[in-house]
């Protein structure tokens, strides 16, 4: 019973860590793609001397 619970817990941990890995990768790629757009949006709020 304890072994089964431990196995289930380790499977769940593996699943969670896999999903966390994909989440981190996806967010990292999204930020890389979005940085120039974000820069453009932020620059739009600055006066010409600060841009």
């Amino acid at each position, binding site marked *: 019973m304890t072994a089964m619970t431990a196995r289930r817990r380790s499977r769940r941990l593996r699943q969670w860590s896999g*999903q966390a890995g*994909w989440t981190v990768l*996806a967010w990292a*790629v*999204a930020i890389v*793609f*979005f940085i*120039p757009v974000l*820069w*453009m949006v932020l620059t739009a709020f600055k006066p010409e001397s600060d841009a």
Partner: protein
Amino acid sequence: VTVIEDLAPPPKVAVERRAASRREAWLRRLPLLPALIYTIVVTQIPFVVTLWYSFQSYFWDQPGGAHFTGLSNYRAVFTNPTFRGSVVRSVVMTATAVIVAMILGVALAVLLDRKFFGRGVVRTLIITPFLVMPAAAALVWASPMLDPNFGLLNYLLAPFGVNHVAWLSTHALGSVIVVMIWQWTPFMTLIVLAGLQSQPTETLEAAKVDGAGAFATFRELTLPHLRPYIELGILLGSIYLVNVFDAVRLMTNGGPGTSTTNLPFFLYQEVNNAFDVGGAAAAGVVTVFLTIIVATFALRMFARVFQFEEAR
């Protein structure tokens, strides 16, 4: 008797019915006529006018108007080393950008097809570069991103020993290609993602039950399924990217020298700097045919690659 019956003229009723069905078919097509006329007006007439100008000697800065000059504009185009160089650069820029954008697009589509935290937001962030106007994208990359002194890229690479690199002077062609890839990867991602989401889950489950690994499933099932989507992305990407002008004009102005001069920028220079309307028209006609050849060649090549993969 049978032969005589076969040769006999068709009965009047049958002829009338056929005429009526033909009339009906034309009536069904009639609503399409405005769209057809519009398409002809906006696509074919400008091309015919360009074709006509390509056989004329017509300079904006010379009095006398246009006069017929035969094939001399085409002769001048094909003997011009700048034109030949711009053809090669257009092919290099288009092929590199389309291939890299498609590889990244497939990878991102596979990533976005999975379930993870904030998937909707990530999809929106990745698609955004495609929604930015090409001129605005070129300006953002030219100055805030790639500037040798204030650019973000040099700032981020400074810890790795990269300092004050003038990307647009030392790596001009690469910089323009990077911007093209950045803008077109989301488009490829969207097309491939549509393909991935139309894939039947039963086949994937069956492959899993049979013990196929993730890579084998992707290579043997997903990739052949994505073939028409990848072909479409490559075709549309090639047609659009061969016409890239904004990035070249605003980032490098075709330079240093002619190192980033592609076909559209060459045409612009012909008209804007040399005032040679006839020469630019001839170069434009050649560009149209080259685009058709490149698109056909790209499609055939990828179709052959996929057929080879399917045959294995």
